[in-house]
């Protein structure tokens, strides 16, 4: 279980990026964090990853405080960030430092098949398309079998078609070991298609505005009326989060029908 307790982040230049963010995410749950630009969603993710620890408040995973990168937490960035001097297979195995060679080889081969790039094992990263490179990055993050996988706008640089494909792909991969996924996105479709819960944040300083439960079974049909309904709720919450005349909700509404004052 991942617990965020009053996570607060002020950068050295005085920017208050995140204000007392609290949430609890259960094992195997998929959570999407959505919000306008500058609402601190990436800051939050980096705090959970242990890359930029919070100024105050705490992030704990199964009772362990996270202040530095942790073995059980993996992260996928907006860019693939593959190491250009390693082959695709070696990139995927990068996080398997102390694993015996045969086990390592088997796990890399398995991951390559799962992301559909078995024929690219020996290729250099420069020979991959954007979508393929991001799939390698996903495989690299999943191969050490993290308990929590953080995704920082992982598909935002891809075209719409590739993005859909990768979203479905990610769910397939998730189903295998069912880690907790925390996904930062600015794409409402993406949030609704993937997440069990959507956190809507509002900017300056970044804080939690609303939480919306997506009670839809998987696989989700992007064209169903239910899907549209949830999408509209998220959009409404998002619009209101950017409207300065709307004050912060005191109590979180699980239906997304936020309170009018």
């Amino acid at each position, binding site marked *: 279980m991942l617990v965020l307790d009053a996570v607060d982040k002020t950068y050295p230049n005085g920017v208050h990026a995140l204000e007392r963010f609290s949430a609890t995410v259960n094992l195997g749950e998929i959570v999407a964090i959505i919000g306008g630009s500058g609402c601190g969603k990436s800051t939050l993710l980096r705090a959970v990853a242990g890359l930029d620890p919070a100024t105050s408040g705490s992030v704990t995973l199964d009772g362990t405080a996270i202040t*530095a*990168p942790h073995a059980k937490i993996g992260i996928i*960035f907006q*860019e693939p*960030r593959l*190491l*250009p001097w390693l082959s695709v297979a070696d990139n995927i195995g990068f996080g398997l430092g102390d694993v015996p060679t045969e086990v390592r080889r088997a796990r890399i081969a398995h991951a390559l098949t799962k992301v559909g790039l078995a024929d690219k094992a020996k290729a250099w990263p420069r020979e991959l398309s954007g979508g393929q490179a991001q799939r390698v990055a996903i495989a690299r993050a999943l191969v050490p079998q993290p308990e929590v996988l953080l995704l920082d706008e992982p598909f935002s640089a891809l075209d719409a078609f590739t993005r859909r494909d990768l979203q479905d792909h990610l769910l397939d991969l998730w189903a295998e070991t069912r880690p907790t996924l925390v996904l930062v996105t600015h794409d409402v479709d993406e949030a609704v298609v993937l997440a069990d819960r959507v956190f809507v944040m509002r900017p300056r300083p970044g804080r939690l505005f609303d939480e919306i439960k997506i009670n839809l079974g998987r696989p989700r049909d992007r064209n169903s009326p239910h899907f549209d309904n949830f999408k509209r709720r998220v959009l409404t919450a998002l619009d209101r989060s950017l409207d300065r005349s709307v004050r912060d909700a005191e109590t979180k509404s699980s239906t997304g029908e936020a309170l009018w004052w």
Partner: protein
Amino acid sequence: MTSETIATAKPEISTNEAATSRRPSYARPLLGLLLPISVALSWEIMVRLGLSSGRLVPPPSKVFATLAELAESGELLRHITATLTRVMTGFGFGVIAGTMLGAMTGYWELARRLLDPSVQALRAIPSLAWVPLFILWLGIFETSKIALIAIGVFFPVYLGVMGAILSVDRKIVEVGRTFRLSGPAMIRRILLPAVLPAYVVALRVGLGLGWMFVVAAELIGASEGLGYLLLDGQQLGKPAQILAAIVIFAILGKTTDWLIEIVAAPFLRWQDVFGRKSGGA
């Protein structure tokens, strides 16, 4: 007339270099030879036809005759060995010092603040200005020459290594952090491969300066070496000998540069750069 000779000898080096850096070195060396050979041939023909006396700018045949003569007497080998030993020793010292200091100042901010300003100030001194001091300190024999060459090699290597480490992509370093690499592992698995391309360039620049400074060192005072051949040719009025030494410099400089390229090539196959031929790997 003499300056013209040097002018025609120089471009042949640079065209060769340009050709090899753009494509894998061994791919088409013949194309690179086209220009120097045609220049040499046309000069030979001009002299043979009597259009020029060829006294100050001797034709290739005469240069080769001089080379053959020097080679036969064993003189050539002695001079080449002397020069090559000096360059390689100076290069070795310069590279070791430049790499260590550059890595330190690149990786460790305190060291950079502490040392880099002084190193940069020293760099601003024209290296030849050290010569009188080196001769006073280290004598007129090998040590002062090697020190001068090492200084010439040191600065480009130092700058190259420090700059390369400073410009390693933060995003890639972050990947290393998320996989919790220790300090040494971060250096071995992320920083070293990331700086390698720039390091190879720094080594090549350093080697080029090493060749430049060996001539300076040998012109100042030496009894053997290719620089001595140059000086001897000037003093005794033997332009063919000067040109022979220049040709040997070109061949040696090009060959050693090429060796660095060949050794580095297998480690740099991953590069995604403009200069690479498509369909590689």
